[in-house]
């Protein structure tokens, strides 16, 4: 028995030492802080920190019990370790012996491990909290009294409706107008039976000092969000065209931390219970805001350090005024009105610059990315393969813009010939023994009326004017024999059908898991791209795996090599019916079918037997 106990002690010490070394390695790589074999005034608490629920109070309490005096605490956000600075070496030794493998301040009473370290990490003290607030952001503490809080909560609960909408991470209820989460907008033609409760009326005179500069004096829409601990709301900006400036939000029942973000800049703001948050100007239009779904918030202490605060149930009342028109703010990045506008001049300029734009932002790019691009294009789209399967033995099929020729081998019973502009891509197809030649889709060097079938998959959306896109279709029509059929795919502006995301959007894992939003990704993209010079008309740079904001865009392609060079490809993404309208302009062909397939608009047309005179 005695031997077993001794063994147990040895094992515990071994376990502690192993754990200690592992934690030290993490701290070393995280913040470049090295352990010290001899005592120093700096102590690392190796295995407990803000991320696993330690509060500054709890830590100081445990340290005080050792008799050692502490001069500074460094709690780091999101870390499972923290640091203490002791007044003297003696204090430090007292704290070390009194806490290491003794103090049960870890999760579920786990013991803390300590180590002397050579210094505090450089990051300590530079928290998110010392940054200035976004411009236009105001938090008014104690905006309502506890009695008023109770009245407000009662008035929103007592209208006979339960919380009708339960979103993934919270419950919602709307007054005045319903906020529609699918379109992120309201329908101004369909007011709800329940207006904003009159019990809220006492709020508006109170904001009087501020409201002189606002677009409105009384809101007509209220969204009530009920958050249980662990609930949150993904990063978003309130749709510009839906609501005027500002947005007001009253926090009831408990505090929470809200994260604001603009590009790479992040600011955390504590919203105390019974405070009013005013988001106006830049804060309303150009910053996204979110509440992270977690149980514990990290908040600053009066001494400038950080501590944790357990969340409890919180209700927020967000008051807004419907805009009923377009937004013309001076913050276009997140502005739905300005992003979707296609100025007439743009298409004229594009038409003028089409040849050189396509040369630089299509042909040259494909030649540079040919091999990497080809690696990502291997599986034929099923509906294209199905179209090709429909041809009889010894039919002649031409693939206009065949790329690496992935469709040329789909049907072994036809003579499939491919053409493309990109030498790099043709070389890949050539290695696979395919029939190829190089040309432009506007001048296909093929005998008229000689081809049984034609496909052009994801090609003509690279042409920079409607005239040229039509020209490419005219060439396909010309080479088809009477009765011959063509299938054309183009990228759709709309990447969602029946509320289902296309494969392209579905691959945006960060958004799908609600780790971020498209708006945040677009802001980041915008900042990265500001450095890229553009020789042509300024086109917006699209953010991959997000919905298209405009029809004429540059789509980044990042190479896989070490340089991670970003190339920009020009695309004209098609609106619904746009491709059909082009087909209708050619009297020699007849539209047989049009459909939507995974974010693409597609048409099948036939060369008429008797061309119209």
């Amino acid at each position, binding site marked *: 028995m005695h031997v077993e106990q001794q063994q147990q002690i040895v094992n515990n010490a071994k376990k502690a030492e192993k754990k200690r070394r592992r934690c030290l390695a993490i701290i070393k790589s995280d913040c470049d802080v090295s352990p010290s074999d001899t005592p120093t005034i700096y102590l690392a608490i190796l295995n407990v920190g803000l991320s696993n629920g330690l509060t500054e109070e709890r830590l100081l309490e445990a340290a005080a019990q050792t008799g050692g005096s502490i001069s500074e605490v460094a709690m780091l956000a999101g870390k499972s370790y923290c640091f203490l600075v002791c007044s003297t070496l003696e204090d430090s030794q007292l704290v070390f012996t009194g806490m290491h493998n003794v103090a049960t301040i870890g999760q579920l009473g786990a013991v803390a491990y300590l180590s002397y370290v050579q210094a505090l990490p450089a990051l300590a003290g530079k928290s998110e909290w010392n940054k200035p607030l976004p411009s236009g952001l105001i938090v008014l503490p104690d905006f309502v009294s506890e009695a008023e809080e109770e009245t407000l909560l009662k008035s929103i609960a007592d209208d006979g409706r339960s919380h009708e909408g339960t979103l993934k991470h919270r419950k919602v209820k709307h007054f005045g107008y319903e906020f529609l989460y699918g379109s992120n907008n309201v329908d101004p033609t369909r007011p709800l039976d329940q207006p904003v409760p009159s019990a809220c009326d006492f709020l508006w005179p109170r904001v009087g000092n501020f409201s002189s500069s606002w677009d409105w004096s009384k809101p007509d829409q209220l969204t009530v969000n009920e958050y249980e601990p662990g609930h949150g709301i993904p990063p978003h900006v309130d749709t510009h065209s839906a609501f005027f400036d500002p947005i007001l939000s009253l926090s009831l029942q408990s505090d929470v931390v809200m994260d604001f973000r603009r590009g790479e800049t992040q600011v955390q703001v504590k919203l105390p219970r019974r405070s009013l948050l005013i988001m106006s100007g830049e804060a309303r239009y150009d910053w996204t805001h979110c509440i992270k779904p977690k149980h514990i918030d990290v908040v600053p202490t009066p001494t400038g350090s950080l501590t944790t605060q357990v969340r409890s149930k919180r209700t927020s009342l967000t008051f807004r005024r419907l805009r009923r028109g377009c937004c013309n703010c001076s913050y276009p990045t997140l502005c739905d009105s300005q992003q979707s506008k296609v100025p007439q001049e743009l298409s004229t300029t594009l038409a003028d610059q089409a040849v050189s734009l396509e040369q630089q932002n299509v042909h040259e790019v494909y030649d540079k990315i040919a091999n990497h691009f080809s690696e990502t294009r291997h599986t034929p789209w099923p509906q294209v393969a199905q179209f090709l399967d429909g041809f009889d033995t010894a039919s*002649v099929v031409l693939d206009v813009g065949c790329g690496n020729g992935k469709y040329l081998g789909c049907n072994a019973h036809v003579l499939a010939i491919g*053409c493309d502009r990109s*030498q790099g891509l043709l*070389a890949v197809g050539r290695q696979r023994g395919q029939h190829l*030649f190089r040309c432009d889709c506007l001048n296909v060097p093929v*005998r008229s009326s000689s081809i049984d079938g034609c496909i052009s998959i994801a090609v003509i959306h690279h042409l920079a004017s409607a005239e040229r896109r039509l020209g490419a279709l005219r060439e396909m029509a010309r080479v088809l024999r009477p009765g011959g059929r063509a299938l054309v795919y183009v990228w759709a502006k709309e990447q969602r059908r029946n509320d289902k995301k296309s494969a392209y959007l579905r691959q945006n894992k960060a958004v799908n898991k609600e780790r971020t939003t498209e708006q945040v990704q677009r802001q980041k993209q915008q900042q990265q791209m500001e450095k890229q010079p553009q020789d042509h008309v300024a086109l917006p740079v699209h953010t991959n795996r997000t919905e298209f904001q405009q029809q004429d865009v540059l789509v980044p392609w990042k190479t896989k090599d070490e340089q991670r060079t970003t190339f920009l490809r020009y695309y004209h993404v098609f609106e619904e019916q746009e491709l059909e309208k082009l087909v209708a302009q050619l009297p020699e062909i007849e539209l047989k079918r049009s459909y939507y397939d995974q974010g693409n608009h597609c048409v099948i047309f036939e060369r008429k037997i008797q061309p119209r005179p």
Partner: protein
Amino acid sequence: MKLSTYNFLTSMAIKGVKVGFPLKLTISKKELVETEFNPTFVERLLPKLDWSAVYGAAQVAELAEDIPAVQPESIADNEQLLQKLHHLLFEIDVLEGQLECPETGRIFPITDGIPNMLLNEDEV
């Protein structure tokens, strides 16, 4: 480039060119690639081909004695000719050479087996 592909190519996109067919073929380097012979395939393909260009290609490939100058009325039973056509159209791979527009003399080079039919902006 296989000679079946050659049968479809034209230079008609050049400004002022009316027919641009058949292109004048020159072979400077070729390779024989054995491929599976399917008589039905060749027979059904023939109506889609231009015989004068088939015969022209045979002459350049030095296979003129295999191919009649005029397209025979019926070919279905002539497996020997089908075999020879298969060889001409699918087994001769032109690696280097050129195609020349019969009307303007514009040269389209064939490099690494791929004819470059791309025209300059001012040619169309």
